[in-house]
């Protein structure tokens, strides 16, 4: 039995956590409560008059087909970003795990993109794919394909999905590599003696054993795609063309700060807040008590 350690009551521990609590209150709790409050208000564009309207903003939102389109678009976007970045990361991690010579080099290079700021990543892809001066449209032209994401919504969507996924690969790669390396080597050897080839070993032994990591990453990636891709989208397409890349979080910004519909925008962010809370609960319930092997 561990003995409980008793300390004399003192002010020190409270002082030590105070900075963190202040930061949390100023930057999280207060804005969140403001958003909650604002979501119940209607304000004119100049901020001259405000009216308390209860849930009218939410009613309007749910009746708005554009909002449902954005919802659908966000789900498609998140699913594809998560799937693409996780699949590529797993493939790269599986390969990096097998490499013996220069493994440190590969790992370092593969982790780098994570250090790139979203806006910078957006600018990078903006130049590569710019229809008039980008290198990719120039190359694609040789294959007879005319790339212009400023006109075609699907191409714009593909572009933001690629860049958002690319940015997240490094993060997923790190976790998958750690997951793969924690699998005892003797398990793979036992499977090899049992006659399983590399592909079979991967799907029947390795993949099930990294599944806790996979599930964790799935939640993290969905959260990322939902909320942290704002910078990339803003830099690349600004939600266009014709709202083709406007996902929920971008719509919050667009309606609130461009359209100046503060109440409606606040209502949207409250809904997003609800989604984050839901995902966090899922994360805690399933990942925290994840199945531990051995």
């Amino acid at each position, binding site marked *: 039995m561990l003995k409980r350690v008793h300390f004399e009551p003192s002010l020190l521990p409270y002082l030590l956590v105070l900075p963190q609590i202040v930061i949390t209150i100023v930057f999280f709790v207060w804005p969140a409560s403001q958003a909650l409050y604002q979501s119940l208000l209607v304000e004119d564009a100049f901020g001259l008059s405000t009216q308390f309207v209860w849930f009218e903003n939410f009613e309007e939102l749910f009746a708005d087909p554009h909002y449902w389109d954005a919802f659908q678009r966000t789900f498609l976007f998140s699913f594809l970003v998560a799937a693409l970045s996780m699949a590529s990361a797993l493939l790269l991690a599986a390969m990096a795990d097998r490499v013996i010579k220069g493994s440190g080099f590969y790992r370092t290079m593969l982790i780098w993109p994570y250090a790139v700021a979203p806006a910078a990543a957006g600018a990078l892809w903006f130049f590569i794919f710019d229809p008039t001066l980008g290198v990719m449209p120039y190359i694609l032209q040789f294959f007879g394909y005319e790339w212009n994401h400023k006109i075609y919504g699907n191409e714009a969507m593909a572009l933001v999905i690629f860049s958002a996924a690319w940015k997240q690969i490094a993060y997923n790669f790190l976790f998958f590599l750690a997951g793969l390396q924690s699998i*005892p080597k*003797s*398990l793979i*050897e*036992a*499977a*090899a*003696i*049992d*006659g*399983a080839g590399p592909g*079979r070993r991967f799907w*029947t*032994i390795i993949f*099930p*054993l990294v599944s806790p990591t996979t599930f964790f990453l799935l939640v993290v990636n969905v959260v990322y795609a939902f909320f942290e891709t704002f910078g990339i989208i803003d830099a690349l397409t600004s939600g266009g063309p014709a709202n083709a890349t406007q996902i929920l979080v971008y719509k919050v910004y667009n309606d609130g700060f461009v359209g100046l519909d503060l109440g409606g925008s606040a209502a949207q962010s409250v809904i997003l807040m609800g989604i984050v809370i839901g995902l966090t609960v899922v994360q805690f319930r399933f990942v925290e008590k994840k199945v531990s*092997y*051995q």
Partner: protein
Amino acid sequence: MASVTLDNIQKTYPNGFKAIHGVDVEVKDGEFLVLVGPSGCGKSTLLRMVAGLETVTDGSLKIGEREVNNVEPSKRDIAMVFQNYALYPHMSVYANMAYGLKIMGLGKAEIDERVKNAASILELTEEQLERKPRELSGGQRQRVAMGRAIVRKPSVFLFDEPLSNLDAKLRVQMRVEIKRLQESLGITSIYVTHDQVEAMTLGHRLMVLNGGNVEQLGTPLELYEKPASLFVAQFIGSPAMNIVDTKMHENGNEVTIAQNVSLALGGGRLKDRAGQALKLGVRPEHLVISEEGANTLPLIVTLVEHLGADTLIHGHFGDDKTDLTVRCSGTQSVKVGEKLPITASLDHIHLFDPATEKRIEF
């Protein structure tokens, strides 16, 4: 059923480290060979080469009549039991055993029969078959690992220190079971251990490895009675053999152990070693407490260990306080500080060359 033939097997790692310096052995069909040695001696490397998990740098490795140097592990018709069991943690015990059989392409009924059969040999219950490995005790996991090897009906079993993760009592029990199992199945087995008791009790033959070289290959009793080198002499047997520096008398007939104590070898058989320094070995169980006499070693007792069936007496003799351990059967009333007269019979004396550390026959 197959023999395993190692012909001048060598292993050099890419960094230039030579792990195995050329091993020759033929493991006969149905034989139980134990590879034993201290950690880092290359015994696991050698086993993994037989399994196909390490490449063979030089030499020829045959299982049966077939050279398998470049054959995939799965095509070598072997099964291996790992030190940490290497059970697939996400599969039930049943699925663990059936995994290899499914890949072999056997039918459901055949797989079921083999698994149930192995389970009954290893005394695993139906209910345990449905559990996950983590829900089993160490000994049960060990059984599952053996079951996974048995169901494959391989020609050769390979064991890589399979008992080292078990507690002492279970280790003795599983040792007996492995021995019984190997004898009843009659499958050629190679077993790696660093535990000399395991090695002595399990193996038909033992190969003692040291630094990638074979020190000696022989039956347990051969190793015990005629150790080929100082290393084997001290590695096999517990407590370890006493080694004493001696000098051969000019007449080539007797060795001087201490002042006024010498041992006549008789026959003058070692005339060519006259005047040379030698190392003399004698096991603790072959030393006897005798009557005070001319040719006895005066042992000053420093520690007495009562094991019940035996008593270990530690002490030293002579001016340079050479350590000596004596093993007496039964309980002895010996006190620390006491002086005991010790002798040894000639039959149980081993002589070694101090330079080459090889055994000298006399």
